[in-house]
């Protein structure tokens, strides 16, 4: 087993609020510079770019998980990760059907660009990805689990789109072992402000929408290999797998 430096929340050019500079090769070039061993592309409500970014990640020797940032009915953001294209596409299909039927307005929200691995524009996604799924928080978590994925609420310390901001606190019975923390957060301060978080593993990520932000938040995972099951074990501190934050060691 070894330590992997991971940033599991990065947007691509598909996210309307993401910069068009977030092309597959540029993302991987910066990820390499920032010494990331493992990344996930997590666009809003769609995995249409994951396969292409996975191909380029392989070229760069960066481990890759297929991700998406689901926006639930309560406007909570969840990161969901999957091991392979097949699982990702199955989930993506259901998620797409659950999205509100609103078209994107590129002038207002930005372009939603699907690219190929050579960075050519393939198409523009029409459905507004900035919108919500009709799944609520618990339902979305359960659906990710049923689809063999791993989900954690994103940036729980943030004032917007976080489970704590929207629901007041994390529901006791929710099916989660870890929560995401924003890149700028000081983990000790976050734990002081939200003592409830002490029982979860904290995964700090960049949530990068611009190249300069990739790797600004990261977390170390001690794993046999990089897959969803190993991440789950690390977050539960089981079978020797573990997780380590920048400012504070957890589960050690």
């Amino acid at each position: 087993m070894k330590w992997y430096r991971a940033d599991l929340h990065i947007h691509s050019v598909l996210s309307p609020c993401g910069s068009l500079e977030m092309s597959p090769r540029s993302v991987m070039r910066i990820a390499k510079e920032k010494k990331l061993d493992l990344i996930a592309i997590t666009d809003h409500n769609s995995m249409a770019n994951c396969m292409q970014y996975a191909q380029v990640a392989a070229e760069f020797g960066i481990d890759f998980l297929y991700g998406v940032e689901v926006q639930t009915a309560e406007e909570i953001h969840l990161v969901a990760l999957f091991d392979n294209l097949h699982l990702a596409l199955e989930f993506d299909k259901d998620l797409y059907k659950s999205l509100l039927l609103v078209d994107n307005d590129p002038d207002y929200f930005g372009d939603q660009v699907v690219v190929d691995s050579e960075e050519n524009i393939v198409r523009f996604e029409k459905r507004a990805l900035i919108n919500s799924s009709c799944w609520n928080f618990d339902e979305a978590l359960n659906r990710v689990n049923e689809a063999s994925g791993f989900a954690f609420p994103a940036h729980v310390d943030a004032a917007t789109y976080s489970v704590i901001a929207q629901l007041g606190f994390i529901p006791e019975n929710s099916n989660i072992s870890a929560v995401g923390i924003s890149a700028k957060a000081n983990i000790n301060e976050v734990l002081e402000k939200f003592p409830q978080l002490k029982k979860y593993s904290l995964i700090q990520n960049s949530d990068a929408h611009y190249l300069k932000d990739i790797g600004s938040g990261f977390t170390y995972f001690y794993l046999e290999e990089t897959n969803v099951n190993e991440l789950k074990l690390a977050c539960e501190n089981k079978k020797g797998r573990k997780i380590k934050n920048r400012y504070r060691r957890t589960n050690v």
Partner: protein
Amino acid sequence: MILLKDFLKKIDGQILTQKVDISNTKIKDGYVSDLLSDVMGNAKEGQVWITIMRHLNVVAVASLANLSAVVFAKNYKPEKAVIDKANEEGICLISTSLPTFEVTGILYEMLKKTR
């Protein structure tokens, strides 16, 4: 102060929590928000909370703030687990077909007359 049962009639509301006795429940004021953290921080005892948020945490937040009742506008109804929890906690849940704006307007008018 007005009686919850009088307000219930005016909004043609349906009580979802049959086990909660509201015969003497009074309303001091109202609060309108769909953001639970906002309600937790600002709602006051004796208020009726008008919302379309249906998560289980609604019951905990209403209980924490000692609210008189929660009104779900636009025919929104929470799942059975939420209603069960509210019955347990003694929180009255009401559903009405009226939109939030109208429910709020009716409550505002009723409270204004008693002030």
